[in-house]
C-alpha cells in the first residue's frame, strides 16, 4: 500500500519505468476494463434517457430532454401503488424467512452421525442447481387443478381443488416457499463454515458448567456467527426489490397479476415488449434508487449497532 501511494505521488519517471516493466499487467486488465465500460458504464450513461424522450434515430444524446415527465407519469398512474406494494410485500416476505437457513445450519452442525450429515447436506443442496424454468414447470405440474398432486391430496381430504397458480391469494406463498425449497440447503453453507470456526474451548467450558446443548447453541454458536449473519443480512437488503424477478415473470399470468405485478416485470413489459424505453428506464431507475438508499441505510445502522458492515 505504501508503495502504491509513493508511486502515485512520485515522479513521472518512476511511473513510466514501472509501466514499461509491467505493461503486460495492464494488457491483462483490458478485457475486464472494456467489458465493464461497455456493459456497465455506458448503460449508466444511458440512464439519462429516463429524463428524455428517446428515439432510436436521434440516439441517446440527440433525444430531447423532458425532465421528470416519465417519473411523474409513473407516480401518478393507478398501477404505481399496486406495483410498489406488491414489490415490497414480496420482498419483506422473503426477508422474514431469512433465519431459516441459519436454523438448518445450526441443526446440521449438531448432527453426530457424519455419514447422515453428509448425505442430508448433499441432498438439500441439490435444488439449487435446478433452473427457475424447471422449478416453475414443476409448480405448474404439481399445482394443476385437475391433474396436480397437491389437488389430488386435497380432494382425498375432502377439500375442493384450488387453482393455486391463477389465484392472487396464493401467488406470494407459492413464490416464496418454492424459493425456500430451492435455496434453503445451499444457503446453509456459509453459516456452516462460520460454525466450524467457533472456538471449541467455549463449548468445553460451558459443558463443565453444565450447560445443555440448547443453551450452548443459543449462548455460544449464535453469537459466534453473528458477524456472518449481519453481513449476509445487509447483502440481502442490497438486493431488496430485485430478487427473483425472472421467476415472477414465469409465474405471472393475467389472473394473478393483482399480486404478481412487480416493478421489474413492469419494466420488462413496458420497455422490452412495448418499446417505451424512456418510461421503462425511469421506472427502473426509481427502483435502483430505492435499492441504494436501503443498502446504505442498513449498512449504516449495522455499523452503529453491531460493528459489522460492508464498508
Amino acid at each position, binding site marked *: 500500500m505504501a508503495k502504491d501511494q509513493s508511486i502515485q505521488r512520485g515522479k513521472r519517471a518512476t511511473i513510466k519505468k514501472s509501466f514499461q516493466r509491467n505493461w503486460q499487467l495492464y494488457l491483462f486488465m483490458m478485457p475486464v476494463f472494456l467489458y465493464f465500460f461497455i456493459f456497465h458504464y455506458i448503460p449508466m450513461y444511458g440512464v439519462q434517457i429516463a429524463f428524455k424522450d428517446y428515439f432510436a434515430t436521434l440516439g441517446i444524446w440527440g433525444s430531447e430532454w423532458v425532465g421528470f415527465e416519465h417519473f411523474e407519469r409513473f407516480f401518478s398512474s393507478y398501477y404505481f401503488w399496486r406495483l410498489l406494494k406488491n414489490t415490497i410485500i414480496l420482498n419483506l416476505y422473503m426477508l422474514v424467512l431469512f433465519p431459516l437457513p441459519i436454523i438448518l445450519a445450526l*441443526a446440521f452442525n449438531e448432527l453426530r452421525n457424519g455419514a447422515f450429515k453428509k448425505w442430508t447436506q448433499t441432498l438439500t443442496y441439490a435444488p439449487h442447481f435446478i433452473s427457475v424454468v424447471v422449478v416453475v414447470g414443476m409448480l405448474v405440474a404439481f399445482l394443476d387443478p385437475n391433474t396436480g398432486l397437491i389437488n389430488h391430496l386435497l380432494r382425498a381430504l375432502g377439500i375442493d381443488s384450488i387453482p393455486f397458480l391463477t389465484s392472487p391469494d396464493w401467488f406470494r406463498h407459492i413464490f416464496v416457499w418454492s424459493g425456500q425449497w430451492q435455496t434453503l440447503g445451499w444457503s446453509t453453507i456459509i453459516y456452516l463454515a462460520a460454525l466450524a470456526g467457533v472456538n471449541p474451548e467455549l463449548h468445553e467450558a460451558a459443558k463443565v458448567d453444565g450447560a445443555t446443548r440448547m443453551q450452548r447453541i443459543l449462548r455460544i454458536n449464535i453469537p459466534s456467527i453473528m458477524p456472518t449473519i449481519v453481513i449476509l443480512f445487509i447483502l440481502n437488503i442490497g438486493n431488496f426489490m430485485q430478487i427473483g424477478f425472472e421467476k415472477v415473470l414465469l409465474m405471472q399470468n393475467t389472473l394473478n397479476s393483482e399480486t404478481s405485478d412487480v416493478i421489474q416485470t413492469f419494466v420488462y413489459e413496458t420497455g422490452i415488449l412495448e418499446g417505451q424505453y424512456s418510461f421503462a428506464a425511469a421506472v427502473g431507475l426509481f427502483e435502483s434508487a430505492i435499492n441504494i438508499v436501503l443498502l446504505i441505510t442498513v449498512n449504516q445502522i449495522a455499523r452503529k449497532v453491531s460493528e459489522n458492515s460492508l464498508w
Partner: protein
Amino acid sequence: MSKFSLSDKAFDRLNFLFVLLITIIIIYPLIFVISASISDPHAVNTGKMWLWPVDVTFEGFQRVFQNDAIWIGYKNTIIYTVVGVIVHLFVLLPAAYALSRKELMGKKAWLWFILFTMLFNGGLIPTYLVVRNLQMLDTMWAIVIPGVVGAWSILVARTFFQQTIPDQLVEAAKIDGASDIYLFFKVVLPLSMPIIAVMALFHGVALWNQYFNALIYLRTEDKFPLQLILRQILILNEVSADSASSAAGSAQSFADQIKTASLVKYAVIIVSALPLLIVYPFLQRFFVKGVLIGSVKE
C-alpha cells in the same frame, strides 16, 4: 433458559428427526419427477403414482428424443455454455491475476471501477439498448457477452491468487527475465486449477440454467437455448406435435396430445437437468469451496 432442559440424548433424537424431515420435504419433489418421467401419464395425472413409478414406460424419453426443438435447444445450450465459460475465464483470470500483483498501479481506482458496478447499474433498458446498438441482438454474443463476468468473481479469484501465488516466486521468475504473460500461463495457471474449476462450474451452471437473456435478446427459434424450449413446454403448455412426428399430427386425437404433453413434461425435465445431476455429486466439493472462498472478507 431452564425451559430448554432437554437431555442431550433427547436433543440429538429431535434434531435428527428435524433434519430428516427437512431433507425428505426437499427431496420428495425430485423423486416424484424422476418417477413420473418413467410412469404411465394416466397414473401420474390421476394421482395413482405418488412415489415410485407405476406402469413403467420410456415413451416420454422416446418422444423427447424425437423432438427436434429440444435437440436444437440442447445443442444451442451446450454451445452457449462452452463458449460462455471460455470467454468468462479469458476475461476473468488475467484481470484477477493483475489485480493480485502489487506492481499494478492505481489498484484502488481499478477496484472501485469494478466494485461500483455491484452498487449501481444502468438497469434493464439501457443495457438492452447497448446490446441492440452493438448489433448483438439475435446472436450468440447477446447470451455470452453481457454478464460475462461479475465483480464478485473477480474479487474471489484475486483473493485466491493472493493467497496461493507466493510473491517470491513471481519476483524470482521476473529476475530471470520472465514476462508477465509467460509467468501467467506457465506458472500461475497450473497452480490455480482449483479456482479455474470453481469459476468455470459456477458460470457454466448459470449459463446452462438462464433463460431471461435469451428471452429478451433472441428472436429466431433456431437459436433458442434449452431453457426457452422448456418454458414453452412446461409453462406455456406449447407442447405438441411440432416434432418429427408432426406428419401424423393431424391424425392425432386430442386425448393423445394431452398424453404426449404429460409424457414429455417430466422426461424433458430429467433430460435438461441430466448433465448437472450427473456431475453434481462429484463436484459438490468444488461448489462448496467456491462459496467459501467468496465469503472470505478482507
